[in-house]
């Protein structure tokens, strides 16, 4: 009875276990414990939350493995970490220290302007961002086991998260109405592998778990994304840039579970203190937008 490791089933399987949950950005072991106590299903270990990466400017790289290891030691839930788009050596390092998921993330400065990492040979699973169905299926084609819509990280403005989720889910709704002979032209139009287009049509959803990310700052934001049809949410700067992180984190967890119950949403939204200040997407020059990174 031989055991098989690192199969696509076990890579996708961990993402399935995270469904209906909240994954929180943390920059210290103390943050990680607050997140776990609040009910996070996983944490994203990094040196700076996206709002600070935005404010600081400069090149944003993989975090110090020492910090990631300390966070891994401090909680029992899965720990994710980010590498730069196309930086397969950062990914090798993250796999070597044993993180549970790698986020090949546009929040960091891309290392390759044409190619993403070939994710198939890795034992550790990857999550990747997308703005539309074509981008999602290209990432799955490269071996991503989980997808998140990008939104616009570090802004606290949910508008881009909504745009990207509507784009992916709307394109799937359109795909489901197409005739068989129209599928190849559709695959060409969105720049996606034909086989994955067919699989998506047959499943009626992405062939991987799909979370929302980028700009979620309140329990209502999380429930909005869930009602639009995503499987769970990432909250980056929205928690630890707010006035009362522990309380806000717990409220967002509850809102993600009870996303269809406005009475519970009203209850958990009360007295949360100051939300993160936020930055309107419309006020950001196009060249500073993060979501456009990735190809």
């Amino acid at each position, binding site marked *: 009875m031989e055991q098989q490791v690192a199969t696509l089933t*076990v890579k996708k399987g961990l993402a*399935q276990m995270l469904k*209906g949950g909240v994954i929180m950005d943390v920059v210290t072991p103390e943050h990680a414990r607050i997140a776990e*106590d609040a*009910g996070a299903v996983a944490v994203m270990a990094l040196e700076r939350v996206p709002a600070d990466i935005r404010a600081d400017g400069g090149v944003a790289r993989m975090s110090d493995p020492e910090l990631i290891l300390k966070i891994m030691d401090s909680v029992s839930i899965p720990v994710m970490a980010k590498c730069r788009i196309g930086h397969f050596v950062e990914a090798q390092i993250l796999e070597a220290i044993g*993180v*549970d998921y790698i986020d090949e993330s546009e929040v960091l400065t891309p290392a390759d302007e044409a190619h993403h990492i070939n994710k198939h040979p890795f034992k550790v*699973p990857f999550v990747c961002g997308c703005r539309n169905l074509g981008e999602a299926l290209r990432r799955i084609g490269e071996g991503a086991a989980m997808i998140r819509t990008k939104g616009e990280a570090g802004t606290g403005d949910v508008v881009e998260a909504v745009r990207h989720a509507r784009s992916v889910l709307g394109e799937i709704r359109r795909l489901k109405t197409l005739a068989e002979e129209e599928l190849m032209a559709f695959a060409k139009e969105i720049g996606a592998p034909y086989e994955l287009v067919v699989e998506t049509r047959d499943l009626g959803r992405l062939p991987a778990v799909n979370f929302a990310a980028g700009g979620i700052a309140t329990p209502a934001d999380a429930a909005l994304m869930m009602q639009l049809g995503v499987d769970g949410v990432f909250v980056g700067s929205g928690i630890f840039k707010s006035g009362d992180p522990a309380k806000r984190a717990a409220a967002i967890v509850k809102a993600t*579970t009870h996303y269809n119950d406005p009475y519970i949403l009203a209850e958990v939204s009360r007295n949360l203190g100051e939300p993160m200040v936020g930055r309107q997407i419309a006020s950001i020059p196009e060249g500073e937008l993060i979501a456009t990174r990735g190809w």
Partner: protein
Amino acid sequence: MTIGVLALQGDFSEHIAILKRLGVSTREVRLSEQLDDLAGLIIPGGESTTIGKLAEDYRLMEPLRQYGREKAIWGTCAGAIFLSRDARRKQPLLGLMDITVERNAFGRQVASFEADLEVPVLAAVDPRERPYHAIFIRAPLIETVSGDAQALAQLEDGRIVAARQGRLLATSFHPELTGDDRFHRYFLHMAGV
């Protein structure tokens, strides 16, 4: 006859899809009143700390314990941890089964695996005896079974990965991630559906 699936967090929709394929009516359970009149309840895979916290916050712990004293419950992975008496860590547990578990017993995600198991009791629902292909994701191990609890399946080295105690069932692996519905049919049989 309706089977409930605890829908606080985790892969509850995968369980629901299999139950629907078997022609069983289902209900997502997030609040205690949704437990009424269920023939059985499945606690899915997910993060046991998250499920436990939400169960406490929405006052589900006692209703779930009461339910489990009378009716059938099956916990997969996080659900098995939640049913156990002890997980060697401070977190909310139902304590319904006389089993102790070790969380993440095989290590982190890179050690998650698939393996074939011999599960003799599945012959009760399917006479064609064949191995059961099981999927383990950051899986717990059932360290000890005591009292009326019995081991149903073991890895080659003897470590326990499935146990039953009366109408309660615990598996450290995820039958809901496979196309093999024998464990679901076994649970329906236990629940009298």
